[in-house]
């Protein structure tokens, strides 16, 4: 089912970041495995190493303007963006959250780079204000040069969560697509294939925050963090499966430990919703957003904590 013309392009060409047009999930119909074509371990690490992980965090910033990779500018706020992501991780991360094939506009009348919220049904820009404006907050974010700080800044960022991953799938989240991409790149570089990866829960211990592992942690909350890793160790984890696909509900329900506070009704409601969501970036965004919404409700005492 693969037409080599498009899928091999990325692999055959020498490294020339920022001029290469990488395959996107939108173009995967003609090259289903474009992003994941076989690559030997040695070739893989060689090709992977010379792209900085910082550029992985910057790779999709052009989406904040609703641009495709083809029409995007190469620079934003003085740093190169839209650079290719190594090891097909971008295509794999896209498949985690969006269907394969030609994109279809899945919400009529909403073809905007602003994300739609599963919690409120509204455009995410209405949910919170971004201090100093979107443009300057984005610029501050992409200008970070230290990789570990960059990861922390994305985990923490509110501005990137107002954008979707694709204008055709407006409930997806640019923030979590990027964090998933970085987690895949980091794992692939360590030699793990997709089918060796786990979703792992890191619980907060005592009063402290949960452990955050640079480039692997994909969402962090006061009580727990979720991480994608090939080395789960003793932590409770569930396999991601043989290949990237919209499989969130499947992986979430198989976790051997429940990270949410399901003794409270709202925790059970969020858990129940997460068992119905299939797109990864939509689900991770939903965790972050719904727990924030829950706290606001509790603070305004409109919610009975003990009610079941």
């Amino acid at each position, binding site marked *: 089912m693969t037409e080599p013309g498009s899928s091999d392009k990325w692999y055959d060409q020498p490294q020339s970041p920022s001029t290469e047009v990488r395959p996107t999930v939108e173009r995967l119909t003609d090259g289903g495995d474009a992003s994941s074509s076989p690559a030997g371990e040695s070739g893989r690490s060689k090709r992977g190493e010379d792209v900085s992980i910082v550029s992985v965090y910057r790779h999709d910033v052009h989406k904040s303007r609703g641009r495709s990779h083809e029409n995007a500018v190469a620079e934003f706020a003085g740093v190169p963006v839209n650079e290719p992501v190594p090891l097909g991780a971008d295509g794999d991360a896209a498949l985690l959250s969006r269907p394969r094939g030609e994109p279809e506009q899945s919400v009529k009348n909403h073809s905007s780079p602003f994300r739609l919220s599963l919690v409120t049904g509204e455009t995410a820009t209405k949910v919170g204000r971004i201090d100093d404006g979107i443009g300057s907050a984005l610029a501050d974010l992409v200008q970070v040069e230290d990789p570990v700080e960059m990861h922390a800044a994305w985990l923490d960022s509110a501005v990137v969560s107002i954008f979707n991953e694709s204008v055709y799938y407006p409930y997806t989240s640019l923030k979590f697509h990027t964090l998933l991409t970085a987690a895949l790149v980091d794992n692939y570089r360590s030699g793990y294939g997709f089918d060796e990866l786990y979703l792992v829960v890191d619980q907060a211990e005592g009063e402290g925050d949960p452990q955050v592992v640079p480039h692997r942690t994909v969402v962090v909350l006061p009580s727990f963090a979720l991480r994608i890793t090939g080395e789960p160790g003793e932590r409770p984890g569930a396999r991601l*499966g*043989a290949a990237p696909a919209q499989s969130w509900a499947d992986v979430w329900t198989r976790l051997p430990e429940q990270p949410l506070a399901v003794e409270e009704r709202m925790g059970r409601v969020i858990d129940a919703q997460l068992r119905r969501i299939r797109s990864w970036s939509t689900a991770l965004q939903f965790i972050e957003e719904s727990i924030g919404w829950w706290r606001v409700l509790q603070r305004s005492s409109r919610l009975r904590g003990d009610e079941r």
Partner: protein
Amino acid sequence: MTMIQQVLLELESDYHGRPYHVSGHALYRALARRVDAATRSSVAVSHGVFVPGEHGGYPDEHSQSGGAPYFGAGLRPVESYEDLFLFRDAAQRWLSASRPRDAQNTHDLRVHGGRIAFSPTVRFGLPQASRNSKRTMTWFVQFYLHDAGGSADSVPLDEDVLDGLRVGGARNYGLGETSLKDTQTVDLDTLDYSTLKDAERSFELELVSPYVTASEYPGADDQSVPWWWTPRPGGLRRRDERLVEDGDVYELETIDHGQVVGYGGPNPVETAKSGVLRVGTHSRYGFGEVRLRPVSEDRVPERARIAATREAGGGER
């Protein structure tokens, strides 16, 4: 003949009950007051799974093919074992990808005086300018009944018994109203179990509803993990549930639904049938429903397809 009766209810008002499913016990209580004593003592009720009334089509494993604009709004033909579970999976894998499937399959929440309830309808596609192009989607609840007493004449129940059931909390305030949308009977013995008959294959079990391991209910014995389960590394996630009867609350310890374990029993077809009729404590009220599946078959069809493409692309990944 092992007859089950599938029922599809339409939600008419906000629902304030269990977020995962409408418990079989709640459905049983609602039915019990409308039927005679013999039926009351013999009928067994599954958990009710929420189904969005939306556009969709059959996933590959089902006996039928094609789709319909309001796929989830009616019961679908059941010819093979897999068809029984079309609407029993929380992820509702039949939902069409050309629509926002995650938004359609998550409930809109409403807060009623501090209580969180689910809205029965959702509106999609709201352009600011045109008033009339809103699309409304309604939620349904799918469950099934069978006769656990063995007489087999209590099922099917009459439509007027099933119409107008009220479920969940705050029923006296008008919440949890439903109406009957569709019902059909299925004979478990005449279904096609061909995917489970290949003796060379190994199988796994998916917990469709929680499996009770301990119950405070008088006379209910504790259960261990059945010997024919082979749990995966990492262990099994457990969750507390409760039964409420006449104001008394009985705590249940359960193994949480949605999990997958290996199957180590000798007779997959028989296990599959008993899994539909449910196993373990409180199985009459919906607990202990399991689905059997060949290990080679992926729960996520797209993933299986992508994995196959990768493999075809060459040995190394």
